[in-house]
Each structure stands twice: as structure tokens, then as C-alpha cells.
């Protein structure tokens, strides 16, 4: 198995190379199946790796080659497959494969079909490097790789200027976070003298490092996570990233890449657990993001924007969970969120496909009759994310709520519950506006409505099944089914240094209070969904244009003016500074010096060229005078 491990990331890389180099010369079918097939093979190998880890209870190490040695910095190009990375590998390759298959149908008429699959495969490769690397440099390599793929795929339709701007925005905002991650890595190397996970965590255990240094490392790493996982203050790129094709939104901007920040914190749980302050910051940022994004989501009318803000909000909840020290619960929510958010995005893609590119839910309505499969899977997705009992989202969210109640207190629990309440509200609004009521689009669109092809509906159904049963992997212990908390136990398996990969965090609540919390959350979700059904399936409650909104609703529709604020605070001052620097430093000072030197020599030349008068006698006199001069200096 050890020798097969490197194949898991490299198969998609081969897919990328084949599709990227020979794509235009191959038929779309071949392109699509090379793209999907390479990910499927990776998925199969990931299952084998998972089973091996499960059987041996120890991580698999595989060093491909020694990457570099500079001084006492040694970096290997090596893979570490332990409980955490093998679980992430299953999510990335599994969901990745389903989305690849979906893309075959969704992108069928696109001219850049093979380019799309090449980028997707490159993304899977980078993401696998990120989660499988056995040191921070590998993680950083993958981290940058997924950022690049995200950029390429957001700007996939590069003829549209807005899409390119959105891609730039995502890339630049991610760069801010990447700087934090990089500085964190420098500090880790300075403190521990290594970047290999194994050595860093071993030295962390044996040496007494100041808490201040640990907190600084954690906060710097968290800045990286903020950028990648779209938290306050760097969250505005994610909604704009919806410019990319819908499968991209599902794969990169919902299920996998944006959870890299969660993975980073979970991977470094040894560091974070030592710093109470850092965990506190993680929790506060997560909670603020979760509530803010959910509030904005209430007033968005673009089907993908609602889902994007929902993703930001859910990622916030995951960070709250991490901040509570419940790393496994965060990973559980990552998993279920990957299922139902990928499902919702792909469902939205199916709707957009049927509507001929229309994304505004005000122009939809009544799609239930025309898109029966999409309707049912979207229903499951909506119920799962809203926390309807016994669906996957219910269990994962409930666990986070229990942890906030236990480790944070009532206020944290109330805020997290408020965020879930908002989740149910905007999802209900989205769902009922889209599928209920009467059709509000044009006559042409009504005529064109059709269910998507099987290549799109089969992945939808598969994800719907996962969204329903996904909760079974980590049932709360009050269920007494024998295999409760399976995922948490799995993730606490032996890792490097014989420590648990992700330590188990118990909820110390009595069974009755847990039942109470669970019951409360279920009632809230069901009541809110019923309420949204009652209000949004009526034609009179279709949202009005943003300009006609007043008060709070207007603020929400304009996303709390965060973009405008950033424009005023950062973009415009930077532009003004750049213009000033351009004029005074570049044009005036630097160009002045360079041009001045040139002009000086021209003047000098113009003066001295008068010596060159062309008269031979004159030259002869010069020559003789020079000779006499030489003789005189030599003899006297």
C-alpha cells in the first residue's frame, strides 16, 4: 500500500496533463471520462488506504523523494495517511468524483470542456497534496495549488470581465491569508527547528515553549485559515467566486477547498489546544462570521449567492466548534456539509441548467412539477442543512450546539442556535421560492424547462442518499446504538508519535439536557421551515428589487456594505497611494534620474564631438603632440 500512496494524488495530475495537453484533440466523452476516471481510481485507492489505516491502527508513511535541505531545514516530499487525512481523502476524491461526473452533463455544450476537466483534476491533485503532505511545506504547496485552481475556475469564462475581477478578488484575498500561513510556518520553524508534522508535534510535547509564542503561531495559522475558509474579515471573495461554473462552486467553494482552513486547525490541534486565547479568537471569528453571513443570506436573490453565504455561515459554525476544542465535531460538520452543500449547489446547477442560465430566484417558482428529481434532492438538501431531525445536518449541527452549550455557555449556544435558525430561514425561503408557487420566468424559459440528463441526476441522487444517512457516522452517544461517535473515535486513532490524531472531546452534559437541546433545535428548524413555506409559497411574498427595500432589509440586501467599506478603507487609499507613488517616485524621481544620466552624457558628447573636426592636419598635430608628450613624461 505504501508504494501506491503517491498514486492517489498523481493520478489526477496525469489526468490534468492528458486533458491539458491533448484535450482539444480528444472527443468530449474521452476528456470527461479521463477526468472522472482518474479521480475514481484515486477514490478506490483512498478506500484501500483507509482500510489499511483502519486495520493496522497506525498511519502510513510514504516519502517520494527528499525535497530539499538548506542548513538545518530538511523537507521531504512525503505523504502521511493517518485517520484525519484518510478521512479527508475519502471526502475529496469521493465528492470530487461525483462532481466530475455531474460536470460531464453540466458542461456538455461548453467550448472549454477539456480545459475545465484539466483544471478540476489539477484541483484534486493540489487538494490531495494539501491533506496528504507530511509537513507544512507540502501543505503550503497544496494550499497555493488549490488557490490557483480556484482562481482559474472562477475566471473560467474569461471573456466576461466581471468574472475575471471576481477571480482576482478571490486570489488577492487568499494571498492575504497565505501571508499569515507563511509567517506562521516561519515561526514554527524558528521555534521548533523543523516543519515536519512529526518533529514539530514531538518537540511541542517535550519542550516548554512560551504560551505567547504558541498563541502567535496559532493566530498566524488561523489568518491563513481565515483567507482560505472565507471568514471575517476575508469572506467577501467567496460569494463573488460564484462567477465560476456551478460544479466548481460545489466542489471547491463548498465541499473541499474552503474546508482546508478547518483541516489546518484540526491538523494543528496540538498547538491550538495549548493556547486558550487562540481558540477563543477562532470561536469569536467563527461565530461572528456565521451570524453575519446568515443574515446577509436572508436577503439575497441569486440562488448561488444564497448558498455561498450559507457556506460562509456553516464554515463559521465549524470554526466555532474548533474554538470549543471540539475538533472532531468540526470534521463531522465538514463531512455532512460536504454532502448536503455539494448536493444543494449541484441541485442549483440543475435548476440553472433548466432555466437556461437564469440564477435569480424571483424569476423561478413552481419548478417542482418540471424538475421532479431536482426537487426531491433539493428538498433533502434543504432539510439536511436546516437541521430537520435524523438527517445528516441535524446530527452534526446538534453536536456543535451541544459543545457550545457545554464548553462555551448559554450565550454561545444561543448565538449558534440563532445562526441555525437563520440557516433554516434563508434555506426555506430559497427552496419555497424556487420550487413552489407559480412560474415567474419568461414564456421562453417555461417552454425550455426540462429535467437534467442522467449524468447530472445520478450524482445528485447519490449525494442525496449521503445527506440522509451521513449522520450515522457520528451518532450522539445518547442514542445507545452501539456504534455512537464512530467518526470521533476514528479520528482519535493513533497518529504519528503515537498520539491521537484528533483528540476526543466529550460533551459533559446529562442525557436529559442533551435531549432538551436536540429537541429545541428540531422544533426551531421545523417551525421555521413551516413558517417559510407559509410565507414564501404565496405569490404576494416574492422579493422586490433591492432598490425598493427599506431599513434593515436594505442593509442585508447590500451585504452590510462590506464591499463598499473595504473599497473605501483599503482599495481606494491603495489606489491613491499607488498613483501618488507612480507620479512622484516613479515618473519624477526614478525616471528623472535615469533620463538625467542619459541627457548628461548627451550634453557631454555634444561638447566633445567638436574635437572631431575631420581635418587631417589637425589630427596629425595631435598625434605628434601626444608622442612628444609621452617622450617627455618618459624621460623627464
Amino acid at each position: 500500500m505504501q508504494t501506491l500512496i503517491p498514486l492517489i494524488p498523481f493520478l489526477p495530475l496525469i489526468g490534468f496533463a492528458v486533458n491539458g495537453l491533448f484535450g482539444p484533440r480528444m472527443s468530449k466523452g474521452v476528456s470527461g471520462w479521463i477526468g472522472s476516471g482518474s479521480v475514481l481510481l484515486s477514490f478506490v485507492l483512498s478506500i484501500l488506504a483507509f482500510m489499511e489505516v483502519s486495520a493496522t491502527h497506525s498511519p502510513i508513511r510514504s516519502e517520494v523523494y527528499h525535497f530539499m535541505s538548506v542548513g538545518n531545514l530538511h523537507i521531504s516530499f512525503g505523504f502521511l495517511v493517518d485517520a484525519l487525512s484518510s478521512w479527508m481523502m475519502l471526502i475529496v476524491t469521493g465528492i470530487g468524483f461525483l462532481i466530475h461526473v455531474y460536470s460531464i452533463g453540466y458542461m456538455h455544450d461548453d467550448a472549454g470542456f477539456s480545459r475545465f476537466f484539466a483544471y478540476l483534476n489539477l484541483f484534486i491533485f493540489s487538494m490531495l497534496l494539501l491533506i496528504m503532505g507530511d509537513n507544512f511545506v507540502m501543505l503550503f504547496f497544496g494550499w497555493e495549488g488549490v488557490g490557483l485552481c480556484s482562481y482559474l475556475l472562477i475566471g473560467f469564462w474569461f471573456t466576461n470581465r466581471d468574472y475575471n475581477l471576481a477571480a482576482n478578488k478571490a486570489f488577492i484575498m487568499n494571498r492575504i491569508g497565505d501571508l499569515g500561513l507563511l509567517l506562521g510556518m516561519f515561526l514554527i520553524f524558528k521555534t521548533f527547528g523543523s516543519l515536519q508534522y512529526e518533529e514539530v508535534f514531538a518537540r511541542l510535547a517535550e519542550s516548554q515553549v512560551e504560551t505567547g509564542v504558541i498563541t502567535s503561531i496559532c493566530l498566524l495559522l488561523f489568518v491563513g485559515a481565515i483567507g482560505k475558509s472565507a471568514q471575517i474579515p476575508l469572506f467577501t471573495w467567496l460569494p463573488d467566486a460564484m462567477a465560476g461554473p456551478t460544479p466548481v462552486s460545489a466542489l471547491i467553494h463548498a465541499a473541499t477547498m474552503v474546508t482546508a482552513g478547518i483541516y489546518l486547525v484540526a491538523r494543528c490541534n496540538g498547538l491550538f489546544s495549548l493556547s486558550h486565547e487562540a481558540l477563543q479568537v477562532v470561536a469569536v471569528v467563527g461565530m461572528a462570521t456565521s451570524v453575519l453571513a446568515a443574515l446577509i443570506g436572508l436577503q439575497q436573490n441569486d440562488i448561488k449567492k444564497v448558498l455561498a453565504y450559507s457556506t460562509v455561515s456553516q464554515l463559521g459554525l465549524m470554526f466555532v466548534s474548533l474554538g470549543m476544542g471540539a475538533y472532531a465535531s468540526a470534521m463531522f460538520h465538514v463531512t455532512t456539509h460536504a454532502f448536503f452543500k455539494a448536493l444543494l449547489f449541484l441541485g442549483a446547477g440543475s435548476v440553472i441548467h433548466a432555466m437556461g442560465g437564469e440564477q435569480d430566484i424571483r424569476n423561478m417558482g413552481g419548478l417542482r412539477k418540471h424538475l421532479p428529481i431536482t426537487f426531491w434532492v433539493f428538498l433533502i438538501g434543504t432539510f439536511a442543512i436546516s437541521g430537520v431531525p435524523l438527517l445528516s445536518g441535524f446530527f452534526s449541527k446538534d453536536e456543535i450546539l451541544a459543545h457550545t452549550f457545554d464548553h462555551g455557555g448559554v450565550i454561545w449556544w444561543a448565538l449558534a442556535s440563532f445562526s441555525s435558525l437563520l440557516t433554516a430561514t434563508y434555506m426555506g425561503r430559497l427552496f419555497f421560492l424556487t420550487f413552489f408557487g407559480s412560474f415567474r420566468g419568461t414564456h421562453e424559459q417555461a417552454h425550455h424547462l426540462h429535467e437534467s440528463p442522467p449524468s447530472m441526476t445520478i450524482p445528485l441522487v447519490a449525494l442525496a442518499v449521503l445527506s440522509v444517512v451521513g449522520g450515522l457516522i457520528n451518532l450522539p452517544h445518547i442514542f445507545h446504538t452501539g456504534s455512537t461517535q464512530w467518526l470521533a473515535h476514528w479520528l482519535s486513532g493513533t497518529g504519528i508519535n503515537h498520539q491521537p490524531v484528533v483528540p476526543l472531546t466529550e460533551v459533559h452534559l446529562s442525557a436529559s439536557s442533551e435531549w432538551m437541546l436536540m429537541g429545541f433545535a428540531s422544533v426551531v428548524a421545523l417551525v421555521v421551515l413551516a413558517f417559510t413555506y407559509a410565507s414564501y409559497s404565496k405569490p404576494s411574498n416574492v422579493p422586490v428589487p433591492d432598490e425598493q427595500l427599506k431599513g434593515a432589509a436594505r442593509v442585508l440586501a447590500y451585504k452590510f456594505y462590506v464591499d463598499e467599506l473595504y473599497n473605501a478603507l483599503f482599495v481606494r487609499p491603495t489606489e491613491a497611494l499607488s498613483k501618488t507613488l507612480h507620479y512622484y517616485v516613479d515618473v519624477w524621481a526614478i525616471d528623472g534620474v535615469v533620463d538625467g544620466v542619459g541627457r548628461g552624457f548627451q550634453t557631454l558628447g555634444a561638447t566633445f564631438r567638436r574635437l572631431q573636426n575631420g581635418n587631417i592636419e589637425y589630427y596629425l598635430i595631435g598625434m605628434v603632440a601626444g608622442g612628444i608628450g609621452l617622450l617627455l613624461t618618459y624621460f623627464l
Partner: protein
Amino acid sequence: MLEIVRSVPIDYFVYLCTALFAIGVLGVLTRRNAIVVLMCVELMLNAVNLLLAAFSTYLSDAQGQIMVFFIMVVAAAEAAVGLGILVMIYRNTKSTDISLLDNLKW
């Protein structure tokens, strides 16, 4: 032969050669006819040749005379090229006055 040459003091050869060389230099500097200028150059070369031959005899060292042969060969070549150029200049300017040749300037 050796005695005859050696009967003349070496100083005299040096004075003669210096005079010849100075005449050549003055001719080059003052005359405007290109042919005369070339002749003056020859005069300068031969002043040096004479000096080399004289010292060669006095010191009983053949090297100086070998050098003279080389200089004569080069002088012959120089005269051929110089006169060739002169012919071309004359065809273009109908004159051998070097002060007319001031086209190679800024």
C-alpha cells in the same frame, strides 16, 4: 667596412638620424600635398632604419639589421596602400591637398 663605420663616432649617427626624423615630422605637419606627406613619413622611417643599422654594426648584433628589413617591407606595403588611396582621392577631388579631406567629422 666595419672599421670605416666604426671610425665615425656613434654620436654623429644619432645627430643625423634625429635631424632626418625631425625634418620628416616637420614635413608631415606643415606640407599639404599628400604625396609630400607620404614622402616625409618615409623619411621618418628611414631615419629610424639608419639608426638601427648603425647601432647594429657598433654592437655587432644582427638583430637591428633584421628589424630594418621588416621595416622596409612594411614601408613598401604602406607606400603601395597609401599611393593607392591617394589615387582614389585624386579621382574624387581632383586634388592631392589633404586639408580638403575633412568629411569624416561630426
